[in-house]
């Protein structure tokens, strides 16, 4: 395992070393010490790496991730795993706003709470939040799944496209065009798989499902496959 202490290594050097793994995998296990809230830690990875970050991170940690498994042993600042394409990002603590924003793929797990705008404009990522999410979460969510084991804040799923939203606790209010939908067997299965993948112990049948009423956007049933 390679260990990098950000107290005496410049951040760009860390990211450069991680990026070099994309062309030739030399070291799959990385540990980052003393992140001290710096921005853009472990962004743009594109290799099957395991990166453990010990401490709190700043903005955009593990943004644009592909393939790598990044674990933040602390809290994450704004935009953690922003635009993730694949791989996984796990936050052991809480995440600030815009967690998983615009992410296309992969799995984002936040063991604590996520603040406002969690999964804003998500485009295929799966997000599992152990605690609660703040207001405007999943705003304009296009594809993927958002699982909230706690409560959701105001205007959940506002202007929603095709994200599947599952919430175990209360929802303060639903956003425009977001409605509660029946939880069928296929949804129980989807939810069970995601809770298992995230290592969360919850009864899937206790969740409620929310989705788009499809009144706001130009939905055509003939093109369902392309959404």
């Amino acid at each position, binding site marked *: 395992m390679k260990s990098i202490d950000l107290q005496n290594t410049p951040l760009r050097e860390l990211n450069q070393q991680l990026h070099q793994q994309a062309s030739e995998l030399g070291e799959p296990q990385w540990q980052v010490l003393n992140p001290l*809230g710096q921005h853009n830690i472990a962004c743009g990875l594109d290799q099957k790496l395991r990166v453990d970050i010990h401490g709190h991170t*700043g903005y955009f940690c593990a943004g644009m991730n592909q393939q790598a498994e990044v674990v933040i042993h602390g809290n994450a600042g704004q935009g953690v795993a922003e635009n993730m394409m694949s791989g996984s990002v796990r936050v052991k603590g*809480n995440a*600030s706003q815009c967690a998983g924003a615009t992410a296309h793929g992969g799995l984002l797990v936040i063991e604590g709470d996520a*603040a*406002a705008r969690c999964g804003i404009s998500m485009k295929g990522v799966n997000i599992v939040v152990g605690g609660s999410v*703040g207001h405007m979460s999943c705003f304009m969510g296009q594809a993927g799944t958002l699982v909230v084991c706690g409560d959701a804040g105001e205007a959940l799923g506002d202007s929603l496209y095709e994200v599947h939203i599952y919430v175990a606790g209360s929802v303060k209010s639903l956003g425009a065009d977001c409605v509660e939908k029946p939880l069928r067997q296929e949804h129980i299965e989807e939810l069970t798989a995601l809770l298992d993948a995230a290592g969360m112990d919850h009864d899937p049948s206790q969740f409620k499902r929310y989705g788009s009423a499809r009144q706001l956007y130009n939905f055509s049933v003939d093109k369902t496959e392309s959404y």
Partner: protein
Amino acid sequence: MCGIVGLYLKDLSLEPQLGALFAPMLISMSERGPDSAGFAIYGDEVADDWIKLTLRHEDPNFAWQALAEAFKQNLQCEVLWFNNDKVAVFKLQSSAAAAADYLLGNHRDVQLLSTGHSIEILKEVGTPGHISATFNLPGMRGTHIIGHTRMATESAVTMAGSHPFSTGLDLCLVHNGSLSNHNRLRQWLLRRGVHFATDNDSEVAAGYLTWQLQEGASLREALSQAQEDLDGFYTFAIGTRSGFAVLRDPIACKPAVMAETEHFVAMASEYRALASLPGIQEAQVWEPEPATIYAWERGSEGSTQ
């Protein structure tokens, strides 16, 4: 953009270290605000029948001793003073109104940055590192302190646009964001006797709180009503003689993070400003909720959210 930071001591044995703990917090927010910076520090209280002023003059060689003599003669009062770069702290056995009237009538070239029993405001155009070094911030002691690093958007890079703003006794506000109804609100407050020194939107927020407190509201009540009357984006950190408060608008676009240990409460625009604080790894760290008042008052226990 702008960065705001605040540090409120629960453990008063840390008072001699307040400036040393706070300076890295302010400097870490340089990228958020490289244009000007400032801070309001509380401590070194004067007796109830005294008043403390922070004054500033463009001329670094301004004759502060002569001003002290003039105060003594014209206000018939005891005067203590010291200066720190272009700023001087005056302590007068007089009233805030009498001192302000005298300055207005005789020394319009002297800027009045703050009045109160505890507060001192120091601010300049320049980077946070420059401001910290100019005023020897790491050597300062006190009970609580709030600071601001400014990236100018709403008005020019000048002293007038530099935060913090104080519009009433011991009250100070720093602001990250922009207010959209400040012109109308300024006119409304002017008619109610609140004075403003600049065209800055954040000063209107400070003036609004001053007016609310003058009308008898508690800090909590004033902030509660502020959410109705202020339109725009804001994260505020507010200092009073014995208190410290944080408020974000309901949309909460502007960032904020808070930390609390048994020794202190701290807030900042970003976590990295808190990373240098002792015991931060074990601190309770959280993001303040939108439209929620977080306030600490000396003499009362803990946060009263």
